[in-house]
Protein backbone atom coordinates (compact mmCIF):
# COMPACT_ATOMS: atom_id res chain seq x y z
CA UNK A 1 0.00 0.00 0.00
CA UNK A 2 1.60 3.19 -1.08
CA UNK A 3 1.35 5.81 1.60
CA UNK A 4 0.98 8.85 -0.63
CA UNK A 5 -1.69 7.19 -2.68
CA UNK A 6 -3.46 6.21 0.48
CA UNK A 7 -3.59 9.74 1.83
CA UNK A 8 -4.72 11.11 -1.49
CA UNK A 9 -7.63 8.74 -1.57
CA UNK A 10 -8.48 9.35 2.04
CA UNK A 11 -8.91 13.03 1.46
CA UNK A 12 -11.28 12.43 -1.41
CA UNK A 13 -13.90 11.27 1.01
CA UNK A 14 -15.76 14.25 2.46
CA UNK A 15 -16.61 12.53 5.71
CA UNK A 16 -13.04 11.41 6.15
CA UNK A 17 -11.85 14.96 5.74
CA UNK A 18 -14.40 16.30 8.20
CA UNK A 19 -13.46 13.65 10.72
CA UNK A 20 -9.82 14.42 10.37
CA UNK A 21 -10.38 18.12 10.85
CA UNK A 22 -12.46 17.67 13.97
CA UNK A 23 -9.93 15.25 15.34
CA UNK A 24 -7.12 17.66 14.65
CA UNK A 25 -8.96 20.38 16.54
CA UNK A 26 -9.56 18.11 19.50
CA UNK A 27 -5.97 16.98 19.49
CA UNK A 28 -4.88 20.56 19.47
CA UNK A 29 -7.12 21.26 22.42
CA UNK A 30 -5.72 18.34 24.33
CA UNK A 31 -2.09 19.12 23.72
CA UNK A 32 -2.26 22.84 24.21
CA UNK A 33 -4.84 22.75 26.97
CA UNK A 34 -2.97 25.00 29.37
CA UNK A 35 -2.61 27.63 26.69
CA UNK A 36 -6.17 27.86 25.61
CA UNK A 37 -8.18 26.93 28.62
CA UNK A 38 -8.37 30.39 30.15
CA UNK A 39 -7.81 29.21 33.66
CA UNK A 40 -7.64 26.02 35.58
CA UNK A 41 -10.33 23.37 35.39
CA UNK A 42 -10.57 22.90 39.11
CA UNK A 43 -10.40 26.47 40.08
CA UNK A 44 -13.51 27.36 41.96
CA UNK A 45 -14.87 30.82 41.92
CA UNK A 46 -17.75 32.64 43.41
CA UNK A 47 -19.64 32.75 40.12
CA UNK A 48 -21.74 29.72 40.66
CA UNK A 49 -23.89 28.47 37.83
CA UNK A 50 -23.51 31.51 35.70
CA UNK A 51 -24.52 31.36 32.05
CA UNK A 52 -22.08 31.60 29.15
CA UNK A 53 -20.35 34.93 28.92
CA UNK A 54 -17.13 36.43 27.71
CA UNK A 55 -15.32 35.45 30.85
CA UNK A 56 -16.77 31.98 30.93
CA UNK A 57 -17.47 30.93 27.33
CA UNK A 58 -19.43 27.87 28.41
CA UNK A 59 -20.60 29.17 31.76
CA UNK A 60 -19.76 27.83 35.18
CA UNK A 61 -20.89 24.83 37.16
CA UNK A 62 -22.15 24.47 40.70
CA UNK A 63 -18.71 24.97 42.16
CA UNK A 64 -17.97 28.02 40.10
CA UNK A 65 -15.58 26.19 37.82
CA UNK A 66 -15.40 27.23 34.20
CA UNK A 67 -17.13 24.66 32.08
CA UNK A 68 -14.98 25.64 29.15
CA UNK A 69 -11.73 24.91 31.01
CA UNK A 70 -13.04 21.63 32.23
CA UNK A 71 -14.00 20.61 28.76
CA UNK A 72 -10.63 21.54 27.35
CA UNK A 73 -8.84 19.47 29.95
CA UNK A 74 -11.40 16.75 29.59
CA UNK A 75 -10.25 16.38 26.00
CA UNK A 76 -7.02 14.92 27.29
CA UNK A 77 -8.86 12.27 29.20
CA UNK A 78 -11.14 11.32 26.36
CA UNK A 79 -8.46 11.15 23.72
CA UNK A 80 -6.13 9.13 25.91
CA UNK A 81 -8.86 6.70 26.79
CA UNK A 82 -9.64 6.35 23.13
CA UNK A 83 -6.06 5.76 22.09
CA UNK A 84 -4.97 3.48 24.87
CA UNK A 85 -8.07 1.34 24.97
CA UNK A 86 -8.42 0.99 21.23
CA UNK A 87 -4.69 0.59 20.82
CA UNK A 88 -4.53 -2.19 23.35
CA UNK A 89 -7.53 -3.84 21.82
CA UNK A 90 -5.97 -3.67 18.38
CA UNK A 91 -2.64 -5.00 19.55
CA UNK A 92 -4.09 -7.98 21.34
CA UNK A 93 -6.60 -8.59 18.60
CA UNK A 94 -4.03 -8.51 15.81
CA UNK A 95 -1.71 -10.93 17.48
CA UNK A 96 -4.29 -13.37 18.64
CA UNK A 97 -6.14 -13.22 15.36
CA UNK A 98 -3.01 -13.68 13.30
CA UNK A 99 -1.70 -16.53 15.39
CA UNK A 100 -4.99 -18.26 15.52
CA UNK A 101 -5.60 -17.97 11.82
CA UNK A 102 -2.12 -18.87 10.79
CA UNK A 103 -1.53 -21.94 12.90
CA UNK A 104 -5.02 -23.29 12.80
CA UNK A 105 -5.83 -26.55 14.45
CA UNK A 106 -7.08 -26.93 17.98
CA UNK A 107 -5.74 -23.59 19.07
CA UNK A 108 -7.72 -21.89 16.36
CA UNK A 109 -10.89 -23.79 17.20
CA UNK A 110 -10.75 -22.92 20.84
CA UNK A 111 -9.82 -19.33 20.14
CA UNK A 112 -12.66 -18.93 17.68
CA UNK A 113 -15.16 -20.18 20.20
CA UNK A 114 -13.88 -17.75 22.77
CA UNK A 115 -13.99 -14.91 20.28
CA UNK A 116 -17.52 -15.74 19.25
CA UNK A 117 -18.70 -15.96 22.83
CA UNK A 118 -17.24 -12.60 23.61
CA UNK A 119 -18.90 -11.06 20.64
CA UNK A 120 -22.27 -12.32 21.76
CA UNK A 121 -22.26 -10.90 25.24
CA UNK A 122 -22.90 -7.28 26.00
CA UNK A 123 -19.44 -6.08 26.68
CA UNK A 124 -20.39 -2.97 28.51
CA UNK A 125 -21.75 -4.95 31.37
CA UNK A 126 -18.59 -6.85 31.73
CA UNK A 127 -16.70 -3.61 31.88
CA UNK A 128 -19.18 -2.27 34.37
CA UNK A 129 -18.86 -5.19 36.69
CA UNK A 130 -15.11 -5.37 36.50
CA UNK A 131 -14.60 -1.69 37.09
CA UNK A 132 -17.15 -1.61 39.89
CA UNK A 133 -15.43 -4.42 41.64
CA UNK A 134 -11.81 -3.79 40.99
CA UNK A 135 -11.54 -0.09 41.08
CA UNK A 136 -12.03 2.97 38.98
CA UNK A 137 -8.60 4.27 38.29
CA UNK A 138 -8.43 5.79 34.82
CA UNK A 139 -5.66 3.53 33.72
CA UNK A 140 -7.61 0.54 34.90
CA UNK A 141 -10.57 1.64 32.91
CA UNK A 142 -8.53 1.94 29.76
CA UNK A 143 -7.06 -1.46 30.40
CA UNK A 144 -10.38 -3.08 30.99
CA UNK A 145 -11.93 -1.63 27.88
CA UNK A 146 -8.98 -2.80 25.85
CA UNK A 147 -9.11 -6.25 27.37
CA UNK A 148 -12.77 -6.70 26.65
CA UNK A 149 -12.94 -5.40 23.11
CA UNK A 150 -10.08 -7.19 21.39
CA UNK A 151 -12.20 -10.13 20.11
CA UNK A 152 -13.69 -8.11 17.28
CA UNK A 153 -10.28 -7.12 16.05
CA UNK A 154 -9.10 -10.68 16.45
CA UNK A 155 -11.88 -11.91 14.26
CA UNK A 156 -11.09 -9.40 11.55
CA UNK A 157 -7.40 -10.20 11.68
CA UNK A 158 -8.04 -13.89 11.64
CA UNK A 159 -10.14 -13.62 8.51
CA UNK A 160 -7.41 -11.59 6.86
CA UNK A 161 -4.81 -14.10 7.90
CA UNK A 162 -6.77 -16.99 6.51
CA UNK A 163 -6.93 -15.41 3.10
CA UNK A 164 -3.39 -14.05 3.11
CA UNK A 165 -2.06 -17.41 4.11
CA UNK A 166 -2.97 -18.77 0.70
CA UNK A 167 -1.47 -15.99 -1.28
CA UNK A 168 1.51 -16.57 -3.49
CA UNK A 169 4.01 -14.39 -1.73
CA UNK A 170 3.41 -16.15 1.55
CA UNK A 171 3.84 -19.54 -0.01
CA UNK A 172 7.00 -18.40 -1.67
CA UNK A 173 8.38 -17.16 1.62
CA UNK A 174 7.55 -20.45 3.21
CA UNK A 175 9.24 -22.46 0.56
CA UNK A 176 12.29 -20.27 0.89
CA UNK A 177 12.50 -21.50 4.41
CA UNK A 178 11.40 -18.39 6.27
CA UNK A 179 10.35 -19.10 9.82
CA UNK A 180 6.69 -18.87 10.75
CA UNK A 181 7.20 -16.05 13.17
CA UNK A 182 9.04 -14.07 10.57
CA UNK A 183 6.34 -14.65 8.03
CA UNK A 184 3.74 -13.47 10.47
CA UNK A 185 5.59 -10.37 11.43
CA UNK A 186 6.81 -9.28 8.04
CA UNK A 187 4.17 -10.50 5.63
CA UNK A 188 0.88 -11.30 7.20
CA UNK A 189 0.45 -8.69 9.85
CA UNK A 190 1.65 -5.68 7.87
CA UNK A 191 -0.61 -6.59 5.00
CA UNK A 192 -3.66 -7.71 6.85
CA UNK A 193 -3.92 -5.21 9.63
CA UNK A 194 -5.60 -2.40 7.75
CA UNK A 195 -9.21 -3.39 8.38
CA UNK A 196 -8.29 -3.63 12.04
CA UNK A 197 -6.98 -0.08 11.89
CA UNK A 198 -10.27 1.08 10.41
CA UNK A 199 -12.17 -0.76 13.11
CA UNK A 200 -9.94 0.72 15.75
CA UNK A 201 -11.08 4.19 14.79
CA UNK A 202 -14.59 3.08 15.59
CA UNK A 203 -13.43 1.49 18.81
CA UNK A 204 -11.89 4.75 19.93
CA UNK A 205 -15.32 6.31 19.72
CA UNK A 206 -16.75 3.38 21.59
CA UNK A 207 -14.14 3.67 24.32
CA UNK A 208 -14.97 7.32 24.82
CA UNK A 209 -18.66 6.48 25.15
CA UNK A 210 -17.86 3.68 27.57
CA UNK A 211 -15.74 5.88 29.75
CA UNK A 212 -18.43 8.53 29.70
CA UNK A 213 -21.05 6.01 30.76
CA UNK A 214 -18.86 4.72 33.55
CA UNK A 215 -18.20 8.22 34.80
CA UNK A 216 -21.84 9.03 34.60
CA UNK A 217 -22.62 6.06 36.79
CA UNK A 218 -20.11 7.26 39.29
CA UNK A 219 -17.62 4.54 38.46
CA UNK A 220 -15.13 6.77 36.78
CA UNK A 221 -11.86 7.99 38.13
CA UNK A 222 -12.71 10.46 40.86
CA UNK A 223 -9.52 12.39 40.46
CA UNK A 224 -9.86 13.48 36.92
CA UNK A 225 -12.06 15.70 34.85
CA UNK A 226 -13.95 13.76 32.28
CA UNK A 227 -16.84 14.79 30.10
CA UNK A 228 -19.00 11.98 31.42
CA UNK A 229 -18.31 13.02 34.97
CA UNK A 230 -19.33 16.56 34.11
CA UNK A 231 -22.67 15.31 32.90
CA UNK A 232 -23.17 13.37 36.07
CA UNK A 233 -22.43 16.37 38.23
CA UNK A 234 -24.64 18.56 36.12
CA UNK A 235 -27.63 16.37 36.57
CA UNK A 236 -28.94 18.06 39.65
CA UNK A 237 -28.60 21.55 38.28
CA UNK A 238 -29.44 21.06 34.70
CA UNK A 239 -32.88 22.56 34.97
CA UNK A 240 -31.43 25.96 35.83
CA UNK A 241 -28.10 25.67 34.11
CA UNK A 242 -28.44 24.00 30.74
CA UNK A 243 -24.86 24.83 29.81
CA UNK A 244 -23.45 22.50 32.40
CA UNK A 245 -24.92 19.54 30.66
CA UNK A 246 -25.22 20.53 27.04
CA UNK A 247 -21.59 21.33 26.29
CA UNK A 248 -19.98 18.17 27.67
CA UNK A 249 -22.47 16.10 25.70
CA UNK A 250 -21.81 18.03 22.52
CA UNK A 251 -18.13 17.39 22.83
CA UNK A 252 -18.61 13.69 23.40
CA UNK A 253 -20.72 13.58 20.28
CA UNK A 254 -18.15 15.58 18.36
CA UNK A 255 -15.34 13.25 19.30
CA UNK A 256 -17.22 10.06 18.56
CA UNK A 257 -18.57 11.41 15.29
CA UNK A 258 -15.07 12.42 14.29
CA UNK A 259 -13.85 8.89 14.85
CA UNK A 260 -16.78 7.44 12.93
CA UNK A 261 -15.99 9.70 10.03
CA UNK A 262 -12.35 8.78 10.18
CA UNK A 263 -13.24 5.11 10.23
CA UNK A 264 -15.34 5.61 7.12
CA UNK A 265 -12.60 7.55 5.41
CA UNK A 266 -10.10 4.81 6.21
CA UNK A 267 -12.47 2.21 4.89
CA UNK A 268 -12.90 4.12 1.66
CA UNK A 269 -9.19 4.66 1.25
CA UNK A 270 -8.32 1.05 1.86
CA UNK A 271 -10.91 -0.54 -0.35
CA UNK A 272 -11.23 1.34 -3.62
CA UNK A 273 -13.02 -1.55 -5.23
CA UNK A 274 -16.15 -0.99 -3.17
CA UNK A 275 -16.85 2.31 -4.79
CA UNK A 276 -16.59 1.40 -8.42
CA UNK A 277 -19.40 -0.18 -10.32
CA UNK A 278 -18.39 -1.62 -13.62
CA UNK A 279 -20.67 -1.24 -16.55
CA UNK A 280 -20.08 -3.82 -19.20
CA UNK A 281 -20.56 -2.92 -22.83
Amino acid at each position, binding site marked *: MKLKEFWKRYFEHPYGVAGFVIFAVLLFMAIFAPLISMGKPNEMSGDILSPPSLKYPFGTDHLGRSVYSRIVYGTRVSLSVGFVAAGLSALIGIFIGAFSGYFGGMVDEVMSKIIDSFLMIPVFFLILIIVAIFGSNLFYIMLVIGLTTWPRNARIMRAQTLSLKERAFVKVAKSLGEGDLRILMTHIIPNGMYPVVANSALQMGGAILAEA*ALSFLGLGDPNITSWGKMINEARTYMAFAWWTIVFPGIFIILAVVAFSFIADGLQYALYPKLKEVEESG
Partner: protein
Amino acid sequence: MIFLVMSLNFFIIHAAPGDPVTIMTGLENPSKEIIETLKKKYGLDKPLVVQYIKYFSNLLKGNLGYSYVYDQPTWHLIRERIFPTLVLTLTGSVVAFILGIYLAIWVSHLRQRFGETIVSTVNYILYATPSFWLALILILIFSSKLKILPTSGMYDLRASYHGFRKFLDLLRHLILPAGTLALIQLPIFYRVTRTSIIQSEKEEYVTTLTAIGVSKEKLFKKYVLKNAILPTVTIFGITLGFSITGAVLVEIVFAWPGMGRLMFDAIFRRDYQLLLGIYFLMAVLISIAMIITDILIAILDPRIRIT
Protein backbone atom coordinates in the same frame (compact mmCIF):
# COMPACT_ATOMS: atom_id res chain seq x y z
CA MET B 1 -22.18 -20.71 25.41
CA ILE B 2 -24.25 -19.40 28.24
CA PHE B 3 -22.21 -21.75 30.32
CA LEU B 4 -19.00 -20.04 29.39
CA VAL B 5 -20.42 -16.64 30.10
CA MET B 6 -21.77 -17.61 33.46
CA SER B 7 -18.55 -19.24 34.51
CA LEU B 8 -16.64 -16.16 33.56
CA ASN B 9 -19.00 -14.09 35.62
CA PHE B 10 -18.81 -16.33 38.59
CA PHE B 11 -15.09 -16.15 38.81
CA ILE B 12 -14.82 -12.47 38.30
CA ILE B 13 -17.34 -11.72 40.94
CA HIS B 14 -15.82 -14.02 43.42
CA ALA B 15 -12.37 -12.72 42.78
CA ALA B 16 -13.46 -9.32 43.94
CA PRO B 17 -12.26 -7.80 47.13
CA GLY B 18 -14.72 -7.24 49.88
CA ASP B 19 -16.85 -10.08 50.95
CA PRO B 20 -20.57 -10.09 51.44
CA VAL B 21 -20.52 -11.07 55.02
CA THR B 22 -18.70 -7.95 56.06
CA ILE B 23 -21.11 -5.85 54.14
CA MET B 24 -24.06 -7.69 55.48
CA THR B 25 -23.25 -7.18 59.05
CA GLY B 26 -22.54 -3.57 58.35
CA LEU B 27 -19.90 -3.61 60.98
CA GLU B 28 -16.30 -2.60 60.66
CA ASN B 29 -15.00 -5.60 62.42
CA PRO B 30 -17.60 -8.21 62.95
CA SER B 31 -16.75 -10.67 65.62
CA LYS B 32 -15.41 -13.98 64.61
CA GLU B 33 -18.49 -15.77 65.77
CA ILE B 34 -20.85 -13.71 63.71
CA ILE B 35 -18.77 -14.24 60.63
CA GLU B 36 -18.66 -17.95 61.21
CA THR B 37 -22.39 -18.25 61.70
CA LEU B 38 -23.27 -16.25 58.69
CA LYS B 39 -20.77 -17.99 56.53
CA LYS B 40 -22.13 -21.31 57.52
CA LYS B 41 -25.64 -20.22 56.90
CA TYR B 42 -24.94 -19.16 53.38
CA GLY B 43 -22.47 -21.81 52.53
CA LEU B 44 -19.69 -19.35 52.05
CA ASP B 45 -17.31 -21.36 54.11
CA LYS B 46 -17.01 -24.15 51.63
CA PRO B 47 -14.22 -24.01 49.09
CA LEU B 48 -14.82 -22.12 45.91
CA VAL B 49 -15.09 -25.17 43.72
CA VAL B 50 -17.88 -26.56 45.80
CA GLN B 51 -19.69 -23.27 45.66
CA TYR B 52 -19.30 -23.28 41.90
CA ILE B 53 -20.76 -26.69 41.49
CA LYS B 54 -23.56 -26.00 43.88
CA TYR B 55 -24.41 -22.87 41.98
CA PHE B 56 -24.78 -24.60 38.68
CA SER B 57 -26.80 -27.43 40.06
CA ASN B 58 -29.06 -24.85 41.56
CA LEU B 59 -29.33 -23.08 38.26
CA LEU B 60 -30.41 -26.18 36.51
CA LYS B 61 -33.07 -26.68 39.10
CA GLY B 62 -34.28 -23.21 38.33
CA ASN B 63 -32.99 -21.79 41.52
CA LEU B 64 -31.26 -18.55 40.81
CA GLY B 65 -29.66 -18.13 44.13
CA TYR B 66 -30.31 -16.10 47.17
CA SER B 67 -29.52 -12.49 47.65
CA TYR B 68 -27.69 -11.87 50.88
CA VAL B 69 -28.31 -8.22 50.88
CA TYR B 70 -32.03 -8.25 50.39
CA ASP B 71 -32.48 -11.46 52.24
CA GLN B 72 -34.75 -12.91 49.61
CA PRO B 73 -34.36 -15.41 46.85
CA THR B 74 -32.98 -13.54 43.85
CA TRP B 75 -35.74 -14.73 41.66
CA HIS B 76 -38.31 -12.85 43.67
CA LEU B 77 -36.37 -9.70 43.27
CA ILE B 78 -35.79 -10.11 39.62
CA ARG B 79 -39.12 -11.25 38.40
CA GLU B 80 -41.07 -8.13 39.08
CA ARG B 81 -38.46 -6.20 37.16
CA ILE B 82 -38.54 -8.22 34.01
CA PHE B 83 -41.76 -6.79 32.66
CA PRO B 84 -40.77 -3.12 32.86
CA THR B 85 -37.47 -3.78 31.19
CA LEU B 86 -39.06 -5.78 28.44
CA VAL B 87 -41.72 -3.17 27.81
CA LEU B 88 -39.13 -0.45 27.55
CA THR B 89 -36.68 -2.37 25.44
CA LEU B 90 -39.17 -3.83 23.02
CA THR B 91 -40.95 -0.55 22.48
CA GLY B 92 -37.71 1.27 21.89
CA SER B 93 -36.36 -1.31 19.50
CA VAL B 94 -39.54 -1.78 17.51
CA VAL B 95 -39.99 1.95 17.09
CA ALA B 96 -36.39 2.29 15.97
CA PHE B 97 -36.87 -0.58 13.53
CA ILE B 98 -39.95 0.91 11.94
CA LEU B 99 -38.62 4.45 11.84
CA GLY B 100 -35.30 3.30 10.46
CA ILE B 101 -36.96 1.45 7.62
CA TYR B 102 -39.32 4.29 6.77
CA LEU B 103 -36.48 6.74 6.80
CA ALA B 104 -34.46 4.55 4.46
CA ILE B 105 -37.40 4.18 2.09
CA TRP B 106 -38.07 7.90 2.15
CA VAL B 107 -34.47 8.70 1.35
CA SER B 108 -34.54 6.20 -1.51
CA HIS B 109 -37.29 8.18 -3.16
CA LEU B 110 -35.65 11.54 -2.90
CA ARG B 111 -34.56 13.17 -6.10
CA GLN B 112 -31.55 15.09 -4.93
CA ARG B 113 -28.63 13.70 -3.01
CA PHE B 114 -28.82 16.55 -0.55
CA GLY B 115 -31.51 15.05 1.60
CA GLU B 116 -29.56 11.87 1.96
CA THR B 117 -26.49 13.73 3.16
CA ILE B 118 -28.49 15.46 5.86
CA VAL B 119 -30.15 12.29 7.05
CA SER B 120 -26.86 10.49 6.97
CA THR B 121 -25.14 13.14 9.05
CA VAL B 122 -27.94 13.19 11.59
CA ASN B 123 -27.56 9.47 11.86
CA TYR B 124 -23.87 9.71 12.56
CA ILE B 125 -24.63 12.18 15.30
CA LEU B 126 -27.32 10.02 16.87
CA TYR B 127 -25.02 7.06 16.79
CA ALA B 128 -22.40 9.03 18.66
CA THR B 129 -24.79 10.35 21.28
CA PRO B 130 -24.48 8.92 24.77
CA SER B 131 -27.84 7.46 25.73
CA PHE B 132 -27.85 8.88 29.21
CA TRP B 133 -27.09 12.35 27.95
CA LEU B 134 -29.85 12.22 25.39
CA ALA B 135 -32.20 11.03 28.09
CA LEU B 136 -31.30 13.97 30.28
CA ILE B 137 -31.64 16.45 27.46
CA LEU B 138 -35.07 15.10 26.58
CA ILE B 139 -36.12 15.38 30.18
CA LEU B 140 -34.81 18.91 30.20
CA ILE B 141 -36.82 19.88 27.18
CA PHE B 142 -40.02 18.01 27.66
CA SER B 143 -40.35 17.75 31.37
CA SER B 144 -38.64 20.72 32.84
CA LYS B 145 -39.19 23.35 30.22
CA LEU B 146 -42.30 22.29 28.42
CA LYS B 147 -43.77 20.36 31.29
CA ILE B 148 -45.73 18.01 29.13
CA LEU B 149 -44.20 14.69 30.04
CA PRO B 150 -43.26 13.16 33.37
CA THR B 151 -39.68 13.07 34.43
CA SER B 152 -39.44 9.61 35.79
CA GLY B 153 -41.02 6.40 36.83
CA MET B 154 -43.26 4.05 35.05
CA TYR B 155 -46.56 4.98 36.55
CA ASP B 156 -47.90 7.89 38.47
CA LEU B 157 -47.50 6.53 41.95
CA ARG B 158 -49.78 8.97 43.59
CA ALA B 159 -52.84 8.21 41.54
CA SER B 160 -54.12 4.69 41.36
CA TYR B 161 -55.44 4.14 37.90
CA HIS B 162 -56.92 0.98 36.65
CA GLY B 163 -57.48 -0.64 33.31
CA PHE B 164 -57.37 1.67 30.36
CA ARG B 165 -56.40 4.76 32.30
CA LYS B 166 -53.52 2.84 33.75
CA PHE B 167 -52.47 1.89 30.27
CA LEU B 168 -52.55 5.50 29.14
CA ASP B 169 -50.53 6.52 32.13
CA LEU B 170 -47.98 3.91 31.26
CA LEU B 171 -47.78 5.24 27.74
CA ARG B 172 -47.23 8.74 28.96
CA HIS B 173 -44.34 7.61 31.06
CA LEU B 174 -43.02 5.41 28.33
CA ILE B 175 -42.64 8.08 25.68
CA LEU B 176 -39.39 9.66 26.81
CA PRO B 177 -37.41 6.60 27.84
CA ALA B 178 -38.53 4.51 24.88
CA GLY B 179 -38.01 7.53 22.66
CA THR B 180 -34.45 7.85 23.88
CA LEU B 181 -33.75 4.22 23.16
CA ALA B 182 -35.39 4.47 19.78
CA LEU B 183 -33.34 7.50 18.76
CA ILE B 184 -30.12 5.84 19.86
CA GLN B 185 -30.86 2.73 17.83
CA LEU B 186 -32.36 4.44 14.82
CA PRO B 187 -29.05 4.97 13.00
CA ILE B 188 -28.25 1.30 12.87
CA PHE B 189 -31.53 0.34 11.29
CA TYR B 190 -31.43 3.20 8.86
CA ARG B 191 -27.89 2.44 7.73
CA VAL B 192 -28.48 -1.24 7.22
CA THR B 193 -31.76 -0.78 5.38
CA ARG B 194 -30.44 1.98 3.17
CA THR B 195 -27.38 0.00 2.18
CA SER B 196 -29.53 -3.02 1.59
CA ILE B 197 -31.90 -1.10 -0.65
CA ILE B 198 -29.02 0.26 -2.69
CA GLN B 199 -27.64 -3.24 -3.05
CA SER B 200 -30.97 -4.73 -4.01
CA GLU B 201 -31.63 -2.13 -6.65
CA LYS B 202 -28.47 -3.19 -8.41
CA GLU B 203 -29.51 -6.80 -8.57
CA GLU B 204 -30.33 -8.42 -11.88
CA TYR B 205 -33.90 -9.23 -11.14
CA VAL B 206 -34.62 -5.53 -11.16
CA THR B 207 -33.65 -5.43 -14.82
CA THR B 208 -35.60 -8.58 -15.59
CA LEU B 209 -38.74 -7.41 -13.86
CA THR B 210 -38.51 -3.96 -15.42
CA ALA B 211 -38.13 -5.62 -18.80
CA ILE B 212 -41.25 -7.68 -18.44
CA GLY B 213 -43.19 -4.60 -17.55
CA VAL B 214 -43.47 -4.28 -13.80
CA SER B 215 -43.92 -0.63 -12.85
CA LYS B 216 -41.23 1.11 -10.87
CA GLU B 217 -43.55 1.51 -7.94
CA LYS B 218 -44.63 -2.07 -7.76
CA LEU B 219 -41.10 -3.21 -8.34
CA PHE B 220 -39.89 -1.29 -5.34
CA LYS B 221 -42.73 -2.02 -2.99
CA LYS B 222 -43.13 -5.67 -3.72
CA TYR B 223 -39.77 -6.93 -4.82
CA VAL B 224 -36.92 -4.70 -3.78
CA LEU B 225 -38.28 -4.04 -0.33
CA LYS B 226 -38.86 -7.64 0.55
CA ASN B 227 -35.33 -8.48 -0.45
CA ALA B 228 -33.84 -5.48 1.25
CA ILE B 229 -35.51 -5.98 4.58
CA LEU B 230 -33.85 -9.26 5.38
CA PRO B 231 -30.59 -7.89 6.74
CA THR B 232 -32.54 -5.39 8.79
CA VAL B 233 -34.50 -8.12 10.50
CA THR B 234 -31.30 -9.94 11.28
CA ILE B 235 -29.85 -6.84 12.81
CA PHE B 236 -33.03 -6.34 14.78
CA GLY B 237 -32.55 -9.66 16.45
CA ILE B 238 -28.95 -9.03 17.22
CA THR B 239 -29.51 -5.61 18.64
CA LEU B 240 -32.53 -6.72 20.63
CA GLY B 241 -30.26 -8.65 22.89
CA PHE B 242 -27.93 -5.73 23.28
CA SER B 243 -30.61 -3.17 23.79
CA ILE B 244 -31.92 -5.08 26.76
CA THR B 245 -28.65 -4.35 28.40
CA GLY B 246 -28.22 -0.94 26.85
CA ALA B 247 -31.48 0.08 28.44
CA VAL B 248 -29.73 0.06 31.78
CA LEU B 249 -28.46 3.58 31.52
CA VAL B 250 -31.80 4.86 30.39
CA GLU B 251 -33.55 3.02 33.18
CA ILE B 252 -31.31 4.65 35.70
CA VAL B 253 -31.90 8.12 34.38
CA PHE B 254 -35.64 7.69 34.30
CA ALA B 255 -35.85 5.70 37.52
CA TRP B 256 -37.61 3.06 35.50
CA PRO B 257 -38.28 0.04 37.72
CA GLY B 258 -36.47 -2.45 35.55
CA MET B 259 -33.58 -4.86 35.83
CA GLY B 260 -31.03 -2.20 35.01
CA ARG B 261 -31.43 -0.32 38.22
CA LEU B 262 -31.43 -3.53 40.16
CA MET B 263 -28.20 -4.58 38.64
CA PHE B 264 -26.59 -1.28 39.33
CA ASP B 265 -27.49 -1.45 42.99
CA ALA B 266 -26.34 -5.04 43.18
CA ILE B 267 -22.93 -4.08 41.94
CA PHE B 268 -22.49 -1.53 44.63
CA ARG B 269 -23.72 -3.74 47.39
CA ARG B 270 -21.60 -6.57 46.22
CA ASP B 271 -24.65 -8.72 46.02
CA TYR B 272 -23.02 -11.37 43.93
CA GLN B 273 -25.86 -13.77 43.86
CA LEU B 274 -28.20 -11.13 42.62
CA LEU B 275 -25.74 -10.04 40.01
CA LEU B 276 -25.25 -13.52 38.74
CA GLY B 277 -28.97 -14.00 38.69
CA ILE B 278 -29.56 -10.88 36.65
CA TYR B 279 -26.76 -11.63 34.29
CA PHE B 280 -28.03 -15.13 33.78
CA LEU B 281 -31.48 -13.88 32.99
CA MET B 282 -30.15 -11.39 30.53
CA ALA B 283 -28.14 -14.06 28.81
CA VAL B 284 -31.27 -16.16 28.55
CA LEU B 285 -33.32 -13.30 27.18
CA ILE B 286 -30.67 -12.50 24.63
CA SER B 287 -30.59 -16.10 23.50
CA ILE B 288 -34.34 -16.15 23.17
CA ALA B 289 -34.22 -12.98 21.11
CA MET B 290 -31.70 -14.56 18.77
CA ILE B 291 -33.76 -17.68 18.34
CA ILE B 292 -36.85 -15.67 17.56
CA THR B 293 -34.92 -13.69 14.97
CA ASP B 294 -33.65 -16.84 13.34
CA ILE B 295 -37.19 -18.12 13.07
CA LEU B 296 -38.39 -14.84 11.67
CA ILE B 297 -35.70 -14.84 9.01
CA ALA B 298 -36.49 -18.39 8.06
CA ILE B 299 -40.06 -17.36 7.47
CA LEU B 300 -39.15 -14.40 5.33
CA ASP B 301 -36.28 -15.82 3.33
CA PRO B 302 -37.05 -19.02 1.45
CA ARG B 303 -33.39 -19.66 0.86
CA ILE B 304 -32.82 -20.43 4.50
CA ARG B 305 -35.52 -22.95 5.19
CA ILE B 306 -34.30 -26.22 6.49
CA THR B 307 -35.05 -28.93 3.99
